[in-house]
């Protein structure tokens, strides 16, 4: 049997690659990483009409194939190294001219190409008439009009791709003319490349020559490694061409190349391919919406309102399912309480497993609602507007408007996760802005911190929950920005990267897209909860249970119980109460003597400054494993501290009734949880994305010291003012 065909999907961001990819592969997808770099690699399987399977690879969306961004390098390396049988170039028909810029580059590279002319519906609505046959004839590439969203034309496209994939295509690079001067220089360079056989097994000589003229860092490095002599020659020729163009034309070869590519595209489109029924400046619905949503006065107000609305939506609508889940886990606990014999196993199941998992899963609805809201903003195109409106501010702090994505994914709109947030920094091109973003995204209120914040606000700021959460989110932003600026002025000093960006048209998100989005993220959270959290919950249970009371103390408690029973009580209830109090003291004493208790106690000396007692300390240490563990640990710590009927009492009531807790302590704790060391998964990701463990260590050390200072400040000032 033949090896299956591989089709790669290439195109500009927002051209519809993912939509087509989902339509082709359905659920048969696999998301991984390209080796060595952290760009997502999506691949899947599609069954062709003749019953054979083919591989579909969704390449990162790019506008060019330069070496300036990891995405572009990944895309072009994939093309030349893995040599897909066919490259399906998704082109946005409503934005043909700009989209063809990548097409030309793909053609210059020489890949076997087919153009999927997507968004034909949008083009039609906008009065853009395209003649696909004419375009195909002029470019010498098959062109298939499709509507990826809706599935029109996809079977045609695949039939065409299948046909193309079957004749073992020889790569035939397109030769665009770049004007007399550059053309003759390119010819000379090609000759050198051919003579030295420089990288010709991977690239066409002309493409290499062009990349030398464009100052392409990756190709120059590769060239120098392969043949120093040829590389020196070519670099010299490129430098000469640059000098010549600067002197005679006042321009650079790379500029001329780009201009000529567009010139080529314009000439193709003018030959009867494209006709507009309307003035190109005509305002479309998108522009009318933008006149309001990015209006200088209304824009920011609406933005704040939208973000605040998202909170209200999330908190209000998730209340009911959260209550159901809480009830469910309470019921499970009662069930285990009644069914299991007393002993360590019962304690493990109730305090370690049910409470631990319940504490985390109870918040799934909240997180799902939040992710759904974010997906709406993201898929509708509104987030790009947020970046546009925010860049001025971000730029001031040494960041980039697109940093906003990473912050929002991390929980800038509360409920994200720093792990994908850290991944989202991949879209940032400058290393410095990227690192500054990487190191500060974990300050945002991720979904794991939410349970902690939600619990404490519910208990201590009842009725003002949405407002407090909103203010905490603003605080997270402020802290992240200031710390980023500090980084950009010290360890990450340097100039900023371009903000040349597209504002995609507003689109109604599809329910399917939203659900896939929401589900992927929620599932990620649940998986984390189900595995890491469960394991840690159990470890922590063990830490809080062992070594247990020394025999002598145990005997003392037994004696106390004995003597209580021999006393006279007015009623059975009174006796039960007395016994309960003894049990609680015993359990508390046992926790104090446990490993966790010892750690918590030993830290208490310092942590008292922020109002944290040893129980809180245990929870915070546990929180390094994952922030949501703070809650389950606190839950375990408290439910272990009390036995009997109160065991099912929720943590919220426990905290509300505990005199050691007050709003000031709650606030200090929330602020500490927000800003101290990111969970170890995030630290690992930061280290990996930044390429060095020292950045991970910096995030841990700096954040913890910083958070503690903030917590102490809040606690001391708050108590001084008598707000406790």
């Amino acid at each position: 049997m033949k090896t299956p065909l591989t089709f790669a999907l290439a195109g500009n961001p927002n051209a519809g690659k993912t939509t087509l990819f989902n339509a082709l592969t359905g659920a048969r997808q696999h998301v991984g990483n390209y080796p060595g770099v952290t760009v997502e690699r999506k691949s899947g399987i599609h069954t062709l009409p003749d019953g054979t399977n083919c591989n579909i690879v969704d390449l990162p969306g790019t506008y060019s194939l330069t070496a300036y961004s990891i995405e572009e390098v990944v895309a072009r390396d994939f093309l030349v190294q893995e040599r897909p049988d066919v490259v399906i170039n998704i082109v946005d028909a409503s934005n043909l001219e700009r989209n063809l810029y990548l097409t030309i580059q793909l053609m210059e590279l020489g890949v076997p190409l087919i153009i999927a002319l997507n968004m034909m519906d949008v083009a039609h609505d906008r009065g853009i008439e395209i003649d696909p046959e004419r375009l195909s004839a002029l470019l010498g590439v098959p062109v298939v009009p499709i509507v990826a969203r809706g599935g029109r034309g996809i079977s045609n496209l695949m039939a065409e791709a299948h046909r193309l994939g079957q004749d073992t295509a020889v790569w035939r690079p397109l030769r665009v003319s770049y004007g007399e001067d550059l053309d003759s220089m390119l010819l000379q360079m090609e000759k050198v490349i051919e003579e030295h056989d420089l990288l010709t097994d991977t690239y066409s000589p002309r493409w290499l020559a062009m990349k030398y003229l464009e100052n392409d860092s990756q190709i120059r490095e590769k060239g120098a490694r392969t043949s120093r002599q040829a590389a020196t020659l070519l670099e010299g020729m490129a430098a000469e061409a640059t000098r010549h163009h600067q002197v005679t034309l006042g321009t650079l070869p790379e500029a001329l190349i780009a201009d000529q590519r567009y010139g080529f595209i314009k000439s193709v489109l003018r030959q009867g391919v494209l006709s507009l029924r309307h003035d190109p400046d005509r305002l479309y619905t998108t522009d009318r919406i933008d006149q309001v949503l990015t209006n200088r006065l209304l824009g920011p107000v609406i933005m704040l309102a939208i973000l605040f609305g998202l909170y209200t939506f999330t908190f209000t609508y998730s209340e009911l399912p959260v209550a159901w889940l809480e009830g469910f886990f309470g019921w499970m606990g009662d069930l285990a309480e009644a069914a299991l014999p007393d002993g360590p196993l019962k304690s493990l199941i109730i305090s370690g497993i049910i409470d631990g998992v319940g504490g985390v899963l109870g918040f799934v609805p909240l997180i799902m609602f939040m992710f759904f809201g974010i997906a709406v903003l993201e898929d509708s195109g509104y987030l790009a507007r947020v970046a546009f409106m925010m860049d001025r501010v971000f730029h001031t702090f040494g960041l980039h408007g697109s940093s906003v994505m990473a912050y929002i994914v991390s929980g800038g709109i509360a409920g994200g996760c720093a792990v994908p947030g850290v991944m989202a920094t991949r879209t940032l091109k400058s290393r410095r802005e990227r690192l500054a973003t990487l190191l500060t995204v974990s300050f945002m209120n991720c979904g794991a911190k939410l349970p902690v914040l939600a619990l404490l606000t519910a208990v201590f700021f009842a009725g003002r929950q949405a407002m407090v959460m909103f203010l905490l989110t603003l605080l997270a932003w402020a802290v992240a920005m200031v710390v980023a600026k500090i980084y950009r002025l010290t360890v990450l000093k340097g100039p900023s990267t371009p903000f040349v960006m597209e504002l995609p048209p507003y689109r109604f998100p599809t329910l399917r897209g939203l659900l896939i989005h929401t589900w992927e993220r929620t599932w990620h959270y649940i998986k984390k909860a189900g595995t890491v959290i469960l394991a840690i919950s159990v470890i922590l249970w063990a830490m809080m249970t062992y070594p247990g009371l020394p025999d002598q103390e145990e005997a003392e408690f037994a004696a106390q119980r004995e003597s209580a029973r021999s006393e006279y009580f007015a009623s059975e209830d009174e006796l039960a109460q007395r016994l309960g109090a003894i049990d609680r003291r015993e359990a508390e004493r046992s926790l104090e003597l446990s490993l966790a208790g010892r750690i918590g106690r030993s830290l208490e000396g310092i942590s008292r400054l922020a109002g944290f007692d040893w129980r809180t300390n245990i929870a915070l240490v546990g929180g390094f494993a994952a922030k949501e563990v703070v809650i389950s640990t606190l839950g375990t710590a408290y439910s272990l501290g009390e036995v009997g009927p109160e065991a099912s009492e929720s943590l919220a009531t426990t905290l509300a009734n505990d005199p050691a807790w007050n709003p000031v302590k709650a606030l200090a704790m929330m602020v500490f949880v927000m800003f101290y060391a990111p969970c170890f998964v995030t630290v690992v990701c930061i280290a990996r994305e930044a390429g060095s463990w020292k950045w991970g260590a910096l995030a841990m050390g700096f954040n913890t010291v910083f958070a503690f200072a903030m917590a102490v400040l809040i606690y001391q000032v708050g108590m001084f003012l008598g707000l406790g």
Partner: protein
Amino acid sequence: MARVVLRRMAKNQRGVIAVVKVGGELGQRIREMGLVPGTRITVQGRAPLNDPVALRVMGGTLTLRNNEADYIEVEIQEEQR
């Protein structure tokens, strides 16, 4: 016809790009989006804090910062609507 730096263009003003005076990554990013000599642009508006600027180019909307717009010179087209 007057030639001005893009930064100085007012909202709704139209023009044709005359020259892009920058190379390297910024030059590449500007050009790959279609901001090359001969391209017609209209200033669509500015962000609330006056920066970045949004342009209407080839039926789509692009944004760039003012200090990036400084490298782009535009031949202004007189109003002819």
